[in-house]
């Protein structure tokens, strides 16, 4: 960052003082690691603990969709390791509460769901030592004995089992209010702090009654301190249907007893990875849940550690005898941490195991046949209305219960269903181009072959849609000429950049099993497309949709991050990722779709060939304290047609220290941050692209309004691409002249949007905003987006003399 030269004292508006009230700082980005419990039932209120970092100034909660709201109750700082005095205090309080409970309610029947809500100020134990501040320590007198045992287990774990994690150390207690008519399914939850919006974390709205696990619930309990495990009332069996919420800590195994009747067809569905798909610092990079079912004699009767390629296990079991059963859950390699959060639903809910076809033609009624467990019908109507192709979801409902969501495709090309026998070249089924073939690899080792007619020079794209539609098929596709010679083939197709960022439309998939290939036909005649499962598997659920179409360029867009924050009038930068298909290479013009929101888009052109570029939106006036939805679209010209695609929100998530994925979010949200006074309008003197010769510098002026004294302000480029640097800043009458240098190594023709930011130290000593080893807390704000194009250096011009001339 460049500091202003002392001899040039620049005076800015008093707004810079007001920046003090805006606690947003590049190094102190608020973060959520998990929410527990990760959801609730329709028509209920749930106290949820959200854990993360830099959440001290939490102000409001934003939840995607309709019918679910939340309010902030309290923030709790991290508890690292308890000192002896603090542990003794906790033990004494639990003992008092247990004694009172035994006296008042020996049967331990009642418990107060609002126990969280009673707040009291932490008292001092001794000079410099406070009682630990944790939501579980409030309202102890209202807790049942089993709850007290749970609190003891959680807070007084043996030291060797405690893994302090700064990124999930702070807690925010929120109250979730779910309308009775709230749509069941996943939602994104975010917290707005004074510093900005957090990342989204998934919660689920369910239809079953809910239960929270209470430790100890395994025979291997933690060492007792106050409440002896044998003295606790026997835990009651769960009443079905139920959704249990739990957390797996190191070496933890959770067990739940429930009563079931003979003949019941139970589905036991665990959500773990679907809540937190990627952990940056764990291998495997997610909570790999394992579930097992035991009968009353302790015999294992069912086991699952995944469901096809989905790491979240699903069990199905038909109860033979009425009685008690026990469900066990743990991590596959017995890891655990507070963010190993799960929800497991047990009941006779509908669960779809196969569907066919896996999609339909846009605008055409499509009913898919379905099979599974506890289904109310054998068909499912697929919504293929509209004109935008893509992947959609459908569910079945039964008695208020909702099935698993099935993904399907709505597409424009004509649909064809596979014929019965077509597994040789001679019996290959003829299809025209374009076609989408709905087929199945019905048995292990089977192959399906299709024939089409082509002309020399035609470019044909063959695209498999199976894994992306939740099919277990791991396709292998070959294209052959009339003689049966393979002219193109593909097994798996994935795109990732040098930094291992997977650039695809499904950031949740780790095995990109769908085949995608493109062939240029060498001559007129017949061609064949063969589909098999590369692992030799098959079955009635191995459905697919095979696209055989003329190669047509297309693209998808992702906005990252999916949550943006800035005060009204200030710009919020983001990255747009372009996911090209079939050789897409055209300029894309971005624009705001929901123009009523008042957003201004800066840097909105993506030149052909770029796979990502920085942009920004200016937060509209009047947005202070609000969260707004942002809808962006991009339009490109492909073969004389204008194609428009929506830009979906995504967040760049790391898996296991190495791979990164663009994980889709439900929406793009912009939070307007509070400020005491409006931010001044700062803009560039020129909106045209700044052309800078390779190895030289270019200059432009940043116009600022009337100025006041400013000290210690630093300017810099926010996350600049390699080879671009802010070289110098000098005051000029209109504001500030910026000199931007382009390195010799940057290729001619390169186009970038550079985000200019300003920062200054924030007064006070806010440790919560200071990462370990980092500089003291600073304000920073993005103020401009500078489009730059690198040009060829003129032979007569030596390095660093180029100037736009102000």
């Amino acid at each position: 960052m460049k500091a202003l030269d002392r001899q040039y004292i620049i005076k800015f508006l008093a707004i810079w003082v007001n920046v003090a009230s805006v606690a947003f700082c590049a190094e102190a980005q608020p973060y959520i690691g998990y929410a527990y419990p990760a959801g609730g039932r329709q028509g209920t209120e749930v106290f949820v603990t959200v854990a993360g970092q830099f959440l001290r100034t939490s102000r409001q909660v934003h939840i995607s969709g309709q019918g679910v709201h939340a309010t902030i109750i309290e923030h709790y700082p991290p508890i690292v390791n308890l000192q002896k005095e603090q542990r003794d205090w906790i033990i004494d309080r639990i003992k008092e509460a247990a004694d009172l409970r035994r006296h008042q309610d020996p049967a331990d029947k009642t418990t107060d769901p609002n126990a969280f809500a009673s707040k009291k100020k932490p008292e001092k134990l001794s000079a410099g030592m406070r009682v630990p501040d944790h939501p579980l320590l409030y309202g102890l007198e209202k807790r049942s004995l089993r709850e007290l045992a749970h609190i003891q287990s959680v807070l007084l774990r043996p030291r060797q089992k405690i893994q302090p994690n700064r990124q999930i150390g702070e807690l925010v207690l929120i109250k979730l209010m779910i309308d009775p008519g709230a749509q069941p399914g996943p939602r994104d939850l975010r917290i707005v702090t004074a510093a900005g919006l957090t990342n989204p974390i998934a919660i689920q709205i369910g239809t079953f009654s809910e239960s929270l696990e209470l430790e100890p619930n395994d025979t291997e309990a933690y060492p007792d301190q106050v409440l002896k495990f044998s003295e606790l009332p026997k835990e009651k069996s769960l009443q079905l249907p139920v959704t249990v919420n739990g957390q797996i800590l190191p070496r933890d195994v959770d067990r739940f007893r429930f009563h079931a009747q003979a003949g019941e067809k139970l589905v036991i569905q665990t959500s773990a990875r679907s809540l937190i798909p990627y952990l940056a610092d764990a291998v495997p990079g997610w909570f790999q849940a394992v579930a097992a079912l035991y009968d009353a004699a302790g015999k294992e009767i069912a086991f699952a550690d995944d469901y096809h390629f989905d790491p979240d296990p699903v069990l199905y079991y038909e109860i033979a005898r009425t009685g008690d059963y026990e469900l066990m859950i743990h991590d596959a390699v017995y890891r655990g941490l507070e963010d190993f959060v799960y929800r497991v639903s047990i009941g006779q809910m509908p669960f779809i195991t196969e569907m066919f076809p896996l999609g339909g033609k846009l605008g055409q009624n499509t009913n898919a046949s379905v099979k599974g467990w506890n289904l109310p019908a054998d068909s499912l109507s697929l919504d293929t209305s509209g004109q935008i192709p893509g992947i959609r979801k459908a569910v079945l409902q039964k008695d208020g219960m909702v099935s698993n969501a099935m993904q399907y495709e709505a597409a424009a090309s004509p649909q064809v269903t596979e014929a019965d026998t077509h597994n040789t070249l001679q019996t290959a089924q003829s299809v025209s181009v374009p076609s989408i073939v709905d087929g199945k690899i019905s048995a292990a080792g089977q192959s399906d072959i299709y024939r089409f007619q082509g002309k020399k020079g035609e470019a044909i794209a063959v695209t498999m849609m199976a894994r992306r539609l939740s099919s277990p098929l791991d396709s292998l596709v070959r294209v052959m000429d009339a003689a049966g010679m393979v002219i193109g083939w593909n097994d798996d197709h994935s795109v990732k950049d040098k930094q291992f960022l997977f650039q695809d439309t499904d950031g949740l998939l780790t095995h990109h099993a769908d085949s995608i290939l493109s062939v240029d036909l060498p001559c007129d005649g017949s061609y064949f497309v063969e589909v098999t499962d590369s692992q030799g598997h098959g079955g009635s659920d191995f459905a697919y949709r095979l696209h055989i179409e003329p190669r047509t360029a297309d693209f998808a867009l992702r906005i990252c991050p999916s949550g943006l924050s800035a005060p009204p009038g200030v710009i919020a930068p983001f990255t747009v990722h372009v996911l090209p298909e079939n050789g897409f290479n055209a300029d894309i013009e971005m624009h705001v779709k929901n123009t009523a929101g008042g957003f201004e888009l800066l840097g909105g052109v993506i030149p052909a060939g770029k796979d990502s570029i920085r942009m920004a939106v200016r937060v509209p006036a009047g947005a202070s304290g609000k969260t707004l939805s942002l809808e962006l679209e991009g339009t490109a010209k492909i073969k004389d047609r204008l194609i428009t695609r929506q830009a979906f929100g995504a967040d760049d998530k790391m898996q296991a220290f190495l791979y990164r994925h663009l994980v889709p979010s439900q929406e793009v949200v912009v939070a307007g941050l509070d400020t005491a006074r409006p931010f001044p309008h700062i803009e560039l003197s020129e909106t045209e692209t700044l052309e800078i010769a390779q190895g030289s510098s270019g200059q432009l002026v940043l116009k600022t309004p009337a100025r006041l004294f400013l000290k210690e302000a630093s300017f810099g480029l926010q996350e600049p691409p390699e080879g671009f640097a802010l070289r110098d800043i000098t005051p000029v009458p209109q504001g500030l002249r910026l000199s931007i240098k382009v390195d010799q190594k940057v290729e001619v023709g390169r186009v970038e949007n550079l985000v200019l930011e300003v920062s200054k130290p924030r007064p006070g000593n806010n440790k919560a905003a200071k990462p370990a080893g980092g500089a003291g807390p600073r304000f920073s704000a993005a103020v401009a987006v500078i489009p730059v194009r690198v040009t060829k250096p003129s032979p007569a011009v030596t390095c660093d003399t180029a100037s736009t001339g102000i």
Partner: protein
Amino acid sequence: MKNGDAITSMTRRQILKMGLAASGMALIDPARLRGQELPLKARAKAVIQIWMWGGPSHLDTFDPKPDAGQDYCGPLKNPISTNIDGIRICELLPRLAKLADKYSIIRSMTHGNNAHETAAYLVQTGHEPGRLVYPSMGALVSLFKGYKQGYKGTVPPYIVLTRAQGRFSEAGFLGPAYKPFCTGGDPAKNPFAVEGIVAEGISEQRQLARRELLGSLDALGRAMPGNAHFAKFDQCQQEAYEMMLGQAKQLFDLSTEQDSVRDLYGRNSFGQSCLMARRLVERGVPYVTINYSGWDTHKQHFETMRRRLPEMDAGFAALLQDLSDRGLLDSTVIWWSGEFGRTPRIQWESPWNGGRGHYGKCFCAVVAGGGFKGGRVVGRSDEKGLEPAERPVKPNQLLASICTLLGIDPNAALSAGKDLKVMPLAEKEDLLTEIMQPR
């Protein structure tokens, strides 16, 4: 499955044959190398490898970048001068700073891989992963300087202090005869419980009593005196007991060292391992690896640096000085490196909170002794430590240079009749002659 996988020309039978040949006898007769003209004089007799397991940050050790800004240097932004003008290293390495005349820093190491296992394989073997598993440097030295070449030490010629790293640092296709002997135990504890040699709580008298009891049960051996197989077995057993009860036990007994020496190295596992390494090379062991783990600092990076760099500084500096004082530095190569460096740009965001990730594009290594010059810097990284700016050095170049100093021809054949060389260099790759003593 990748499109168009290349298929090598070797069959599995051929590869198996190589492995069997290596386990039974040398694949090549290194004696063939004697008499070959090597470009530089072979000075070194031994190597001590300090393996910084996990990947140490190059910016926070031997390639500081104080001008790169807070996001790159973090709190360690005041590097210190060394006793060589123009060379600065991290402020947490003051003892090493005074000994810069004894070592050279390579600041432009590169291989581009960010995965622990692959990167460790690249740096330890000098080869890219492929169908064959190549031997690590230690196994190579064990082949060329070990028993079949006249080594008569009481302990194996390739020793690891103290924990094995596993298959990425072992014998590869040479076979188990060239695997390292891992001591286990902790040299900072008393006794240093070396696997199979020193057992805590079991006296020598008890060991001898056990041996006697075992002998009294050997009815079959007594019934067949003179049997060649039993004679061989007895010989192996005798050698093992000699290790346990004889010189090897004394060799690993660090209590015979003066307290002042042990204090100088540092009373911790690493420091005492460095002292143990000195004792081993003194006794003629040709290759010692000190596996120094804990450098994979994705989180709590600067806290770890503040805690561990002083420990590393003390042990490494004491080793250099001690070897030099005893006249052993000229004949002992010391090689310090990890599998890669760490991301120059600090990861302030959650969950790293000021950590550094893996970085194989640019990192550093340090070499000393055995024919390497001191007080030099090879190559240069760019202003932020992101890329080699001058003289990029690949792992095989470094290992080929070490081989040369040991008198092992990098271009010697490693397998009879096959085109496998010890440490081949590609067309534009060369030895690090600028830091190698001339003939």
